[in-house]
């Protein structure tokens, strides 16, 4: 993603004299239609954008020509605003900070008693600090990752003669696990999927276990008599859901004949 802007910048090299102010909009910036997303994905914030500007111009990070960098930074921000992109407040805050440093640079600084301080010092410190972690993140990505680059080896070890005590699980734990999974899923999805009553889901599983693809089950045989009206409704809903999900097929050979149910999959 980063390459997009960097490449665009590299294709149009502009000769610039160090320290000379830039008066025109940066014409080396390719702005795609989905500019905001690209912009926000490309730059991880104002520090990242500043680092990009400094690197692009081959500037000394320890001796930033603040007027020039400020100008360019504000041009980028101006472009984004012109494109009616809502920029995060951090970008605007940084613009204000740059302007302040610029104005402080113009003031004569007191030299006595070692109290002298470069107005850029704090900015430089932050840029250097951020750059270290930016690089560290790139190195992280290059580390061998389990499941992407290296894989845990696993061999089957099921010994008939050996009984191992399996871990115990309580119902409460199971409920909590379900709750956690749902709570997290809610973070990712903004829609709520309509869920069927649990008894219907269970009946769906039961029906699937019961029928076989190679063998037709009589439709009526799936309805348990002992469960009464409610059982019939649940079974019927389960069958409808299974048909909707293309998990079963209904077959009727003759008009008004017996309806048969079979699994839609070739094997179960």
């Amino acid at each position: 993603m980063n390459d997009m802007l960097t490449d665009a910048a590299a294709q149009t090299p502009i000769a610039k004299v160090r320290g000379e102010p830039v008066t025109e909009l940066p014409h080396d910036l390719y702005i795609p239609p989905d500019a905001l997303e690209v912009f926000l994905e490309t730059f991880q914030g104002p520090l990242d954008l500043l680092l990009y500007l400094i690197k692009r111009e081959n500037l000394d990070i320890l001796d930033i020509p603040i007027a020039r960098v400020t100008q360019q930074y504000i041009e980028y921000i101006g472009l984004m605003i012109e494109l009616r992109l809502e920029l995060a407040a951090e970008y605007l805050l940084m613009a204000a900070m740059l302007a302040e440093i610029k104005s402080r640079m113009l003031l004569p600084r007191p030299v006595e008693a070692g109290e002298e301080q470069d107005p850029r010092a704090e900015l430089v410190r932050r840029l250097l600090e951020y750059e270290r972690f930016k690089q560290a993140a790139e190195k992280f990505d290059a580390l061998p990752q389990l499941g992407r680059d290296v894989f845990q080896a696993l061999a089957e070890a099921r010994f008939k003669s050996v009984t191992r005590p399996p871990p115990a699980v309580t119902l409460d734990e199971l409920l909590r696990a379900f709750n956690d999974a749902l709570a997290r899923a809610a973070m990712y999805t903004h829609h709520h999927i309509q869920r069927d009553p649990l008894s219907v889901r269970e009946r769906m599983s039961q029906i699937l276990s019961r029928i076989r693809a190679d063998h037709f089950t009589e439709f009526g045989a799936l309805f348990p008599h002992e469960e009464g009206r409610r059982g019939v409704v649940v079974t019927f809903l389960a069958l409808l859901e299974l048909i909707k999900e293309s998990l079963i097929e209904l077959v009727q050979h003759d008009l008004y004949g017996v309806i048969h149910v079979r699994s839609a999959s070739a094997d179960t």
Partner: protein
Amino acid sequence: MTMDTTAIKNILEAALLAAGEPLSEERLSGLFNETERPARGQLREALQQLRDDYTSRSLELREVASGWRIQVRQEFAPWVARLWEERAPRYSRALLETLALIAYRQPITRAEIEEIRGVTIASSIMKTLQEREWIHIVGHREVPGRPALYATTREFLDYFNLRGLEELPALAELPAQDAAHPELDLAEMLPAQQVEAAADADSASIDSGNVD
């Protein structure tokens, strides 16, 4: 470019151990791209070599119904079994969540579970749950790849002392975490997350209304 049998053998071993489950010859063959794909005979030859390699080792290569599988030799059972004896192991959060999703949302495919959990599920988890006979495959969804549909078993109900799934507790019954386990270790519990999860319980209970 064709590959020599040793190179093929190494790839087959890598895949069989990474998969941790039997692989059919079709799947093994599918590991190679067209230019390097070995002929059926060469594939079998490489498998034979792998089998020979294992004669002096703890492993064996066996052909079972669903394909080829690398397994630990029976002679090693006394030592390997101590792995599971030494301490009552605990199931991982990932396993419990997978089981919970199968219980509450069955029949469900692995991809659907992964979609809800937001992460991929290790094959070992599905294997463990099937070995424990808590879940089984009840069919396949008729979409590309025909993924298996998982459901819980009668053994699952028996273990949890349930007569039916409708007896599974509903989300609303979740007691407050802090009150229930005041003594729990701070680092173990990821306190903030628990608090957040409890806070989210409200929003999650929107669909819990349909669940019970």
